[in-house]
């Protein structure tokens, strides 16, 4: 067993030898958040949850007859245990949710993913293991999957359901009950590999994904057939690789953005804290990988930007040009997702969070960027447009009039004409990711619905939202309101029946 090689995997050089130690301010974070929550009810979206949920939603308006299926969603639900509170929004344990639409009625179910971490810590009554943004080290652990929170996405694929994290394996759940089946290994030699929460599924059912361990400088790549069998797996070396959350897939390429972070080896810091913004020294890089060889085709320079989410990409000019739509944050946005856990609000600066169109010319190496929408996040396209030229991009945004960054607006952007079809929710409402759901046999990218979840923090209730994808500005055609609040999700996918 070669220690050096194992450690080189990344994650872990952190805090070797430190045991029985947890940062003292996990309790301070708890106290600060609860003090802030007492005066600001909008912070309930970051509040802790215990137990499972099951309920019927009251439908306002009318659910379209043709919209039938399950909206599977996932996000962190448990932030607090034993009087401690995590420091980062990404740390919480995964809480899987299913909104089931049948015959115009909507039911909701929510259940924690029973990862080994969740079970161990539940039994202990306290956090034991390091989380992304909170360096807890009460117990040793085997590998990245020992820390897997399965908290980022819920993906129906090949008649199965997977709760996805980004630093480890997919966790299989029972789609009917959301009960945890266990860690899924795509192939024996891929056990405990990082498998990101943002796989892309092409219209033919092929799934592409990547995986990275920050500091590991290696990007694993996967092509998985619609039957769940691994068709291709490999890795590319990317120096100074940092948090890698999402990517885009075109007909011939995989597109990544590597933000300018240095990874500190300070053993007393969490992985999030070890991401030291280096935007003053260097910019971000776009890495374009050729699908056929799984080798890097070209690397492009960008200004210093952070990227979480990609919309889509497509190729032109026989594969010599790739266009990609994504959201770029100007500066160290990773820190902001930590501050909210203390109950701090982020100032609203829409120009710093822009949905962009990037054109990459592989022959000349030229990059051209066009701004699509300010204050944006969570871009999605219709499933039939993945890896092809898309005309519509659905995303959330924070209205320019908000004083603090609040994703309160849903948009379908016509990326060819630059027109935006938007709806802003009422004060105290907060939108979660919305996805485009095609009508069966859809003839266009607006032939279907925009489906999401919104939280009304005035009443501490959550609702499923349904918009006509061609007429978002007219407001939701249906809101299915639960009598309770659901944990705020990161990502989800609609499975039509």
């Amino acid at each position: 067993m070669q220690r050096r090689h194992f450690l080189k995997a990344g994650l872990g050089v952190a805090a070797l030898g430190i045991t029985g130690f947890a940062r003292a301010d996990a309790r301070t974070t708890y106290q600060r958040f609860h003090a802030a929550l007492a005066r600001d009810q909008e912070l309930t979206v970051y509040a802790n949850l215990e137990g499972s949920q099951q309920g019927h939603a009251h439908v306002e308006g009318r659910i379209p007859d043709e919209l039938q299926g399950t909206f599977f969603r996932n996000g962190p639900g448990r932030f607090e245990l034993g009087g401690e509170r995590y420091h980062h929004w990404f740390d919480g344990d995964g809480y899987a949710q299913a909104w089931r639409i049948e015959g115009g009625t909507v039911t909701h179910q929510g259940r924690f993913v029973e990862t080994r971490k969740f079970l161990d810590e539940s039994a202990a009554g306290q956090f034991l293991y390091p989380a992304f943004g909170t360096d807890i080290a009460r117990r040793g652990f085997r590998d990245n999957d020992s820390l897997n929170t399965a908290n980022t996405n819920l993906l129906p694929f090949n008649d199965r359901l997977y709760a996805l994290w980004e630093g480890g394996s997919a966790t299989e759940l029972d789609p009917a009950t959301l009960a945890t089946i266990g860690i899924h290994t795509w192939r024996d030699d891929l056990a405990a590999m990082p498998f990101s929460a943002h796989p892309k599924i092409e219209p033919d059912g092929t799934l592409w994904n990547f995986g990275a361990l920050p500091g590991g400088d290696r990007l694993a790549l996967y092509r998985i057939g619609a039957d769940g069998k691994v068709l291709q797996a490999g890795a590319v070396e990317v120096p100074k690789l940092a948090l890698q959350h999402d990517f885009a897939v075109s007909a011939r390429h995989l597109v990544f953005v590597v933000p300018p972070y240095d990874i500190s080896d300070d053993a007393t810091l969490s992985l999030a804290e070890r991401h030291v913004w280096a935007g003053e020294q260097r910019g971000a890089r776009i890495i374009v990988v050729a699908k056929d060889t799984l080798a890097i085709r070209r690397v492009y320079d960008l200004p210093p930007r952070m990227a979480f989410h990609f919309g889509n990409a497509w190729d032109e000019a026989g594969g010599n040009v790739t266009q990609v739509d994504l959201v770029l944050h100007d500066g160290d946005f990773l820190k902001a997702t930590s501050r909210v856990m203390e109950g701090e609000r982020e100032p609203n600066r829409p120009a710093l969070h822009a949905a962009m169109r990037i054109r990459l010319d592989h022959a000349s190496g030229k990059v051209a960027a066009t701004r699509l929408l300010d204050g944006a996040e969570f871009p999605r396209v219709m499933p039939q447009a993945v890896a092809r030229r898309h005309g519509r991009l659905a995303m959330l945004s924070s209205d320019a009039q908000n004083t603090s960054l609040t994703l309160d607006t849903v948009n379908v952007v016509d990326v060819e004409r630059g027109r935006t079809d938007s709806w802003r929710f009422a004060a105290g409402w907060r939108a979660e990711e919305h996805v485009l759901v095609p009508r069966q046999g859809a003839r266009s990218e607006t032939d279907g619905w925009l489906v999401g979840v919104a939280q009304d923090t005035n009443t501490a209730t959550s609702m499923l939202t349904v918009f006509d994808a061609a007429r978002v500005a007219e407001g939701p055609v249906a809101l299915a309101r639960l009598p309770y609040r659901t944990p705020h999700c990161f990502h989800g996918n609609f499975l039509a029946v």
Partner: protein
Amino acid sequence: MIRTALLALAFTTPLATAADLVVRVDNVQSTSGQIMVALYDNADAFLKHPVRAEKAKADKAGTTLVFHDVAPGDYGFAVFQDINDNGRMDRNLMGIPTEPIAFSNNAQGRMGPPDFAAVKLAVPAAGLDTAVTLR
């Protein structure tokens, strides 16, 4: 006669001062391949240069391996199940072991092997029975 007895004693002396280290390996989930145990006697050699190694057919009921004639002292051991019988501990593309592993004292590192101080156990002259759990 006395001389013969002394000679016999001389030959059996190692059994008196160097004893057995018995390692029971639990949580063997499959009967495939061998359970491999490497024994180390100092921090510098740990995971590099074992003083001894043993292997045994994987047994779901628990696999027991015996190091005979171990001189008293401090040791640490590393275990893996060579499920595919290729003679080495397999790793994935990121370097993480894909076959079950364990260390003496059931020590665990943090995203890597534990250090020698955590795996170190004292083998007395009378020998030692110890158990570890594969993970």
